């Protein structure tokens, strides 16, 4: 029964399928297969069945709430769910039960979606492999010895493995697009501010953005449309109308100019990826797109700028975990001792490393050399994208320099960070980007094509991804899990 949401709802409309049967089927698959994949941290079984029954009533009475009514969806455990434990992949929040819904979750419930559960992630969204969840690692459905990418690895693996029809994650430096590429699904990071971050547990507030994972581009458009738009509860939320993203999809790429950045084809990248991406560009050319070379020279400094800005902001955001208001507390002899014991016991190694790095970068005497410098480099990255987008409509590039790696393969923190070298510039500049499957390596592992666009131009980004998807058949290939 694992098929795109738009096909499920078509079947609901015709009366060929019932939301309860679909929800039960997904829950049964989760029960049978998630022991191998580890995509979920919490399965919301009773909630899902209740929501599916209510959806069924609406479809039966001819009054569904829209294109997501009865769609079985998973959300990353970084999004607050009222009454349902939200851990952020950390022992710090093992028993945290939010008193409110994130705006994204609230909008999904209002749209009639069936929430299946909360997905696994690297602790506090710090990581690129979902090996650094405090609970268990997630495995790539295409090859269980390999990682699904991260930090939203549970959400990507759930969609790839048929354990959810669609899902949501968060992307701070590539945490949606990179796992989408590794798992052979579509994943989108919208423009910074396009989706409300209210109720999203903060990592780096100037970079974080919520977005969907889907089986195809049509679902991606539906899932984005359902949660995008202004929210007065997030002061960084953009007050701009949300277009009908699905209506734009069939417009094609004829007449569009696509930029190919020199800096995204680097020494050391997997030759299978370069081959697949160059073939994808030929396909787009065949569909009538014009290809033009562009240069984004500061790309090579983006990783360093990001690893100043992210830890700096994260160290401030994570100061709130002090054992007082919510989360873990370990008793101590006085307040400072209690806080230190709590934070030492509650945070994992990567989280501690980034808190230390960020605090160092912000500390007296180093602020200008690190944080100030990185913020200026960020301006250069934005300017280069703006200059490129004055000449081209979209930018196409690989999503990642490598395919999904083996568990335990990237022990050194810096080699893990290099995974995000092609996705980080999109976060630094705030622009939207999607990863769409564009082939397989010789070993049979998925490869992602990244399409980046101007701020708030998600419609055109999706349109190009859709044109490519419709011209190819990669999405018909599925991992064999059972």
């Amino acid at each position, binding site marked *: 029964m694992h098929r795109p949401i738009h096909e499920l709802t078509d079947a609901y409309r015709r009366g060929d399928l019932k939301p309860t049967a679909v929800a039960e089927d997904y829950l049964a698959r989760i029960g049978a297969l998630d022991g191998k994949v580890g995509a979920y941290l919490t399965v919301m079984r009773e909630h899902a069945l209740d929501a599916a029954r209510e959806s069924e009533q609406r479809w039966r009475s001819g009054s569904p709430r829209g294109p997501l009514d009865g769609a079985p969806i998973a959300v990353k455990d970084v999004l607050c769910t009222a009454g349902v434990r939200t851990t952020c992949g950390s022992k710090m929040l093992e028993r945290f039960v939010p008193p409110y819904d994130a705006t994204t979750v609230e909008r999904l419930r209002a749209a009639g979606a069936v929430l299946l559960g909360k997905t696994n992630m690297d602790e506090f969204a710090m990581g690129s492999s979902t090996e650094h969840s405090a609970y268990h690692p997630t495995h790539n459905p295409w090859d269980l010895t390999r990682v699904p990418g991260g930090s939203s690895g549970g959400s990507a693996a759930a969609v790839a493995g048929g354990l959810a029809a669609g899902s949501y994650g968060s992307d701070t430096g590539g945490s949606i697009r990179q796992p989408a590429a590794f798992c052979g699904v579509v994943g989108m990071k919208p423009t910074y501010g396009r989706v409300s971050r209210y109720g999203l547990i903060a990592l780096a507030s100037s970079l974080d953005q919520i977005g969907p994972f889907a089986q195809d581009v049509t679902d991606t458009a539906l899932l984005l449309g359902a949660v995008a738009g202004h929210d007065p509860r997030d002061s960084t939320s953009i007050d701009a109308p949300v277009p009908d993203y699905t209506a734009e999809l069939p417009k094609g790429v004829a007449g569009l100019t696509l930029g190919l950045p020199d800096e995204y084809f680097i020494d050391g990248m997997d030759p299978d990826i370069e081959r697949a991406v160059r073939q994808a560009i030929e396909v787009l050319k065949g569909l009538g797109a014009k290809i033009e070379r562009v240069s984004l020279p500061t790309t090579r*400094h983006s990783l360093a700028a990001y690893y100043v800005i992210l830890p700096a902001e994260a160290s401030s955001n994570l100061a709130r975990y002090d054992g007082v208001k919510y989360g873990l507390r370990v*008793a101590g002899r006085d307040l400072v001792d209690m806080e*230190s014991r709590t934070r030492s016991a509650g945070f994992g190694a990567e989280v501690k490393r980034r*808190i230390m790095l960020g605090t160092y970068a912000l500390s007296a005497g180093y602020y200008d050399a690190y944080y100030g*410098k990185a913020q200026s480099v960020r301006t250069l990255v934005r300017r280069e994208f703006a200059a490129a987008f004055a000449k081209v409509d979209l930018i196409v590039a690989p999503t990642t320099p490598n395919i999904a790696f083996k568990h335990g393969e990237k022990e050194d923190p810096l080699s893990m960070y290099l995974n995000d070298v092609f996705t980080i510039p999109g976060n630094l500049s*705030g*622009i939207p980007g999607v990863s769409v499957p564009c082939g397989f390596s010789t070993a049979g592992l998925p490869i992602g094509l990244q399409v980046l666009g101007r701020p708030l131009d998600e419609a055109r980004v999706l349109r190009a991804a859709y044109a490519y998807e419709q011209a190819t058949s990669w999405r018909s290939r599925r991992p064999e899990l059972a």
Partner: protein
Amino acid sequence: MIERKDVEHVARLTRLALTDAELERMREQLNSILAHLDTLRAVPTEGVEPTSHAVDLVNVMREDEVGPCLSQDNALANAPDRSGEFFRVPRIIEE
């Protein structure tokens, strides 16, 4: 290069109690990461204003009106320790 005493200082600032072995490992890893971050120094940024944020938003204001908010009980529901309507913490002020 950052030294052991710098690592200890930062650990105190961040309220992390690290063991000897953790401090040493942290020193090595931070130095390796900082060596990469130091490549930023080569980027000419004189006169380039910093970007703190990708969206050009200034202060967002709203009317100063009471709206729906969390109840006190909800706000206290996850507290590791509470006393009536307060978060309870270890003693801060000496008797």
